[in-house]
């Protein structure tokens, strides 16, 4: 049984509505070997509002009815060769039409150099032109991924995020319940801290949540009664990582006799975060309970399930088999042989 819980309360989504071409250029310059062909800050003040990209083949061929000009325009070999094969007059007409739209910026791939006229029109229309040596498909893939990340919704969660045996465990719970202490204990046992107290979570593609720390506080954490410590400087590089997929949310709560906790693990609770459903485990805590070891087991059990072994289901299946066998021995009947029991005078 799967139960989808209400989404986390009191959480505000942050959505970027646009990025400037300047920001786009600075972020992609080294990553995707992007160089700027236009001088100075021509076109850098324009903004990108769409996470998608566009290859304007048809627009260059003259069909501009459905031209998604507000997207980053990528010109590959096809577009550049097409422009080349046109006569000078035709090319001029096509380019004028192309640049008459309010394009955020143009990227050329495969180191395809634009013509002089192309550059003149770009400058005239305050549009930045970039060039990259990468093949078009690869470049388009990278840029899409980058823009997708920029425009995906984010939230800041109050919790501790640790990579335990490669499983992203996000500890959640009220202030002062001991999330940081559990994280510290896990680090001590060789696991890696992603972030403590403030975890930035963003949705990647469909159904993946990525979590990381904030730029300022990264791997600093507060331990009550001790103050602020820097995990990286104390435990070294092995104790940290910068980002991790969020795979499980462990909600720490004071044990209460009134609440019911799962005893079999057959029913899975899910919680919706940014529209992604994530397994949610309610973990009651009380003095003397070793949450660290339990957390490790939670991670390992998740891995087992991921690789196809579900302990709760297996044991439940074994029990069913044993019951069936006993029934057979006692009654001599082979159970479940016919789908219907004997029906009197039913000759139909």
């Amino acid at each position: 049984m799967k139960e989808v819980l209400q989404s986390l309360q009191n959480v505000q989504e942050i959505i970027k509505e646009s990025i400037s071409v300047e920001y786009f250029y600075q972020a992609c310059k080294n990553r995707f070997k992007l160089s700027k062909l236009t001088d100075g800050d021509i076109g850098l003040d324009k903004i990108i509002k769409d996470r998608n990209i566009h290859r304007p083949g048809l627009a260059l061929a003259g069909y501009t009815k459905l031209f998604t000009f507000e997207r980053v325009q990528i010109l590959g070999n096809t577009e550049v060769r097409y422009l080349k094969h046109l006569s000078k007059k035709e090319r001029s007409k096509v380019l004028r039409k192309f640049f008459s739209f309010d394009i955020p910026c143009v990227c050329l791939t495969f180191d395809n150099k634009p013509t002089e006229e192309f550059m003149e029109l770009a400058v005239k229309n305050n549009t930045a032109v970039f060039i990259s040596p990468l093949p078009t498909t690869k470049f388009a893939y990278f840029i899409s991924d980058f823009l997708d990340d920029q425009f995906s919704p984010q939230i800041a969660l109050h919790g501790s995020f640790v990579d335990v045996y490669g499983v992203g465990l996000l500890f959640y719970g009220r202030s002062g319940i001991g999330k940081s202490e559990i994280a510290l204990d896990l680090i001590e046992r060789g696991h890696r801290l992603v972030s403590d107290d403030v975890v930035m979570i963003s949705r990647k593609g469909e159904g993946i949540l990525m979590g990381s720390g904030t730029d300022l506080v990264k791997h600093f954490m507060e331990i009550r009664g001790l103050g602020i410590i820097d995990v990286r400087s104390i435990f070294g590089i092995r104790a940290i990582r910068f980002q991790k997929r969020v795979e499980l949310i462990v909600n720490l709560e004071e044990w209460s006799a009134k609440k019911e906790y799962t005893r079999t693990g057959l029913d899975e609770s899910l919680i919706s975060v940014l529209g992604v459903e994530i397994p949610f485990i309610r973990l009651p805590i009380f003095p003397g309970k070793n949450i660290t070891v339990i957390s490790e087991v939670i991670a390992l059990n998740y891995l087992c399930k991921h690789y196809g072994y579900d302990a709760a289901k297996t044991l439940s299946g074994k029990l069913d088999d044993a019951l069936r066998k006993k029934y057979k021995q006692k009654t001599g009947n082979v159970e479940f042989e016919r789908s219907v029991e004997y029906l009197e005078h039913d000759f139909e």
Partner: protein
Amino acid sequence: MNKAGMHTRPASLLVKIASRFKADFYIIKDGFQINGKSIIGVMSLAAEYGSTVTLTFDGPDESKAAAEITKFFEEGFGEL
């Protein structure tokens, strides 16, 4: 807000005050919402002089908490 912004000392005072109350206390700045009872959280906001923050309170003693924390802000974190 205080000229030096929300630096370490006022941040720790704020967290101490907030922790005395049962009510949930959140600070929102530039769309980021953090728990006002967490020192790392408050520091990560890097709220500079003149910046605008929104405070939310929710819980049994919310009005008391709101009054005290607003006072703390208005007094420039006791540093003016």
